[in-house]
């Protein structure tokens, strides 16, 4: 044993121990030391290969867990998509309601029911269309239909959830109207001659009328069927009807009635009156 303790092997052990202790003290006190740099540099390549080989992107999840997470995310995605559709519907309704907000501000006595155009009547050449509100919303036959720019028609038929709108281009429409500038009164009624151009006729003008191109024609509200002061359109032409020897003005509504997408039905207003007779009042 004594001989072993004096042997070369023990001296080697002690020498190596001394070096290791010194290196240990050195590396413990010097962070970025050459020993760790060399060793880590030698093993870095190996570690990166093994790390890349085992990196399957699963982040520690099993196949079953990944499948469940996928199903959960798929369902969440579907819910979010439905919410997005709903959001856009609400947003478009909000835009639509804002359009009639100004109308409501100008006429606080109006009871408005905003509606969306469902479809157009293919048999009607006067741009009749259907709205998505009916008697369940308080709509009834004869109610005026307006856009944000003015009167566009009236409710000709009504069921529980929808109603049909006849526009001011239709010959079945007869609305008492007046020229806001000259005060001349007459009847706005449609004509197949002008309907294809999105125009209607302000007829039954007197010989002494002062109507001019550019004048704004509005409702008189006398009969109680249409509110007073609703814009109908602007005079674009003047003419003389030899059939009944009367003068007339061609009016172009402010809205392209062939492209109506939403409107508002006035189900109540101050001065609302008589029962509709025939196709329309007046």
């Amino acid at each position: 044993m004594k001989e072993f303790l004096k042997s070369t092997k023990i001296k080697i052990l002690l020498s190596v121990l001394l070096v290791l202790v010194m290196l240990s003290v050195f590396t413990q006190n010097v962070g970025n030391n050459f020993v760790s740099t060399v060793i880590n540099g030698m093993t870095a390549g190996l570690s990166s290969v093994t790390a890349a080989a085992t990196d399957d992107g699963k982040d520690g999840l099993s196949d079953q867990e990944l499948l469940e997470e996928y199903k959960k995310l798929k369902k969440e995605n579907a819910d979010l998509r439905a919410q997005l559709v709903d959001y856009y519907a609400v947003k478009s309704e909000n835009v639509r309601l804002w359009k009639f907000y100004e109308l409501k501000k100008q006429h606080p006595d109006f009871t408005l029911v905003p509606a969306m155009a469902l479809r157009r009547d293919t048999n009607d050449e006067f741009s009749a269309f259907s709205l998505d509100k009916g008697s369940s919303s308080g709509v009834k036959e004869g109610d005026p239909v307006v856009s944000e720019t003015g009167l566009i028609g009236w409710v000709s038929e009504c069921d529980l959830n929808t109603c049909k709108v006849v526009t001011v281009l239709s010959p079945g429409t007869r609305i008492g109207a007046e020229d806001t500038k000259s005060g001349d009164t007459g009847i706005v009624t449609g004509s197949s001659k002008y309907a294809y151009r999105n125009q209607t006729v302000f007829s039954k003008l007197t010989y002494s009328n002062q109507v001019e191109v550019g004048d704004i024609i509005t409702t008189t509200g006398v009969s109680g069927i249409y509110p007073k002061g609703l814009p109908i359109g602007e005079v674009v032409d003047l003419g003389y009807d030899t059939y009944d020897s009367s003068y007339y003005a061609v009016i172009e509504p402010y809205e392209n009635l062939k492209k109506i997408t939403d409107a508002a039905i006035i189900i109540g207003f101050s001065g609302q009156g008589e029962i509709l007779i025939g196709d329309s009042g007046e």
Partner: protein
Amino acid sequence: MTEKTASVFRYLAYTVEIILVFVLCTTPRLLPELWGAKPCLLLCVAVTISIFEREIPSMIFGIVCGVLIDLGYSNAIGVFTVALTVLCFVIGYAANNLIRANFTNFIICSFLVTASVFMLYFLFEYVFKGYTDPWSYFTQNLISRMAQTFVCSVVFYFINRFFYRMISAEE
């Protein structure tokens, strides 16, 4: 095959073994974690090599394994390197001069080495550094690590015994 040649081949085999074990230990998600810890396989390799080889080669392989263990969790040479250097040298000397290199003696040596190395690690890395509640680390992590390392060393004993018997000088 002479003893020297056989030794060289055995050392090469041990080197490859150490590299493979190092890869096994450092590859993410390859080794399962049991009770909050993983076994220290490099320590198993160092102990099993020592039981079959002489003092100096045992010490060298102990140094290599110790450095790889230490630099796996820090940038400094620490407890594992110094402890394995001494213990592997002692086991190498004892297995060649004092005791027989059989399974029973190996179990005793492995147990002693594993316990002493991890206790030293616990002392130097937790107790002396003043960490709070080192006892909970010892019970929740270290005991499990020690037990797993001890169990795995049995597997490496048979692997290295295979190397030693297959790559030995013809008698």
